[in-house]
């Protein structure tokens, strides 16, 4: 499962990143802003049409991504309800 597939209010953990060659420069930017294996993520808000951009909670930080960027992040859903 990738981050763009996360439902609103659902919590997951970052499992890894796309190994796709073309996505690597974006992956390094995602890592720099703070996404790392094991981090807690939650989908907070989406845009009006087409569900982009997306805003996430990463640990306690809020980050905005588009669907394309979110699809580069692999996640494992958690069974914990959002706080």
């Amino acid at each position, binding site marked *: 499962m990738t981050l763009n597939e996360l439902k609103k209010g659902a919590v997951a953990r970052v499992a890894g990143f796309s190994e796709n060659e073309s996505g690597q420069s974006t992956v390094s930017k995602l890592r720099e802003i703070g996404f790392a294996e094991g981090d807690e993520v939650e989908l907070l*808000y989406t845009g*009006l049409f087409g569900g982009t951009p997306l805003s996430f909670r990463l640990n306690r930080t*809020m980050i*905005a991504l588009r669907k394309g960027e979110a699809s580069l992040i692999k996640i494992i859903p958690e069974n914990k309800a959002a706080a």
Partner: protein
Amino acid sequence: MTSLKLALVGAPNSGKTTLFNGLTGGLAKTANYSGVTVETRSGHFKTPIGVDVEVMDLPGIYGLEAHSVDERVAVDAIAGNIEGKTPPDALVVVVDAAHLRTHLHTVLQMKTLGKPIILALNMIDLAERDGVKLDIDALEKEVGVPVVTTRATRSAGRQSLLKVIDDQIQNLKSQQSQIPQQKVDIKQLQSEARAIANKVVLFEPVMNKVTRNIDKVVLHPVGGIVTLFVILFFMFQAVFSWATPFMDLIEVSAEALGNGVAAVIPDGLFQDLIVEGVIAGVGSVVVFLPQIIILFCFILLLDASGYMARAAFVMDEAMMRVGLNGRAFIPLLSSFACAIPGVMAARTIENEKDRLTTIMVAPLMTCSARIPVYVLIIGAFFSNDQVWGPIRLQGLVMFGLYLAGIVSAILVAFVLKKTATKGPSQPLIMELPTYKVPQPRDFFLGLWSRVWAFLKRAGTIIFATSVILWALVTFPLRDEPELRTSIAGKIGSVIEPIFAPIGFNLEMVISLIPGMAAREVAVSVLGTVYAIEGGEENTEGLSAALQNAWSLPTALAFLAWFVYAPQCFATLATVRRETNSWKWTLMMTAYLFGLAYAVSGITYWVAKGAGL
């Protein structure tokens, strides 16, 4: 005496600038424009034992891989790759204490540079209020650098930093003893950072509750768009209605000053120069200071509160459709104040083609220098009738003009992205900061630097053009004060035929030329021109003179011209510098001229056809 050179580094929104202003008292060498820290600012402070510290405030970075021009500046400054600038002796890495877990790897990355480091856990008071509990001693031990907690806003909250500088002065100066490490894989740094975070973060609640609650409205798919438009609309209404009493005061004062001077200086050319040239010319521009202050107040507060990134988020979808990134909205919003900081703020955009597109459309955002022109014309030709509730017609027309600029920018960007700056759409990766109460010190320092810039323009460019223009309309000396026989009139007559098809008269044409030096000069030119034409009888002021001399279609065409009117020389020079290309600069000038001419013409003939 010992001296030390420090650089403040850290993520955007970590409170570096507040810390910098607190340490230095705000006395900095280069200007800091709204939206981002575009230039490296430097200032001085002294520690309790008397170390003379020079400190640099750098653009926000998350790591050492510079993606944008802006980040390049920061990384180069740290590494000492900027010519003529000595690299810092040591770094103060500023981290928002509330987001330590997410940003700790940035600290480890800075450590790989081999420079002495102090880790400042900033805004610790806000983090504690959220309920975050950190083990500072463990953090110091695990990271292996001195750690201080700071409250950037209080001087007591900065003492710990000053004390550590004094205690560690020998270590901080000993940069030669440390060797930079090999480039470390960010994945490895992150896993180290997370391991440390697990030990030192004793407790952290899920998220700042206030931020979460505000965002329920502000980032709501529909509510967000409504919020943004309400804020923008309120901002433009405020610019109009709140400023009026202050503007009246300035106007009355300028008139009294003119009369006073006229009473002292004997009649003649010199009195004319001072009263009609200098006081009337400069005064007609300074009168707009209250409005410019109000506009900047809004921009500064939106920025400092953390709303600006939300505005970029809300706009991202629309921006994506024209091929741009939501982030481009921030430089564009700065352009509402002035296109120069806007064009410079585009440095934060990573993709070169996106940056060029943003620069090219930035002048279509209505800059504050256009406000005087809009206010004059709208005030003269539209009543201030109530339209609905607190909304008045003049504010509505003003809003329409701003909207015309925005819509045009979207269309131009769309065309550019399909042609000259064609390329794939760029990723949006942006932190949405926690909402904060803006700091009075940052706010007033920011406001003062902008007010000062405006007054400096009034005292230099506008003063000079007012005097030159007065000379051009006064000479050659003649008995009948007929505009057409003056030097300005003769120059204007040559280009008048070009503008005749779009309804512009001689006076308007004359006002357009010095308008290239500074937009607002167009107002003082009209003031001077009509004052001279009207002679003694002209006592009702400029607005009455315009009502007599211009038809409504003419006034509308003039407004339309200023929506697109090519930028002042200062902006064109900035565009030349930032793009490093004459081709782009000329292209911008040409397309703006073309649009201005075409849209003014259409406005004029449509309005005429409609019988206005």
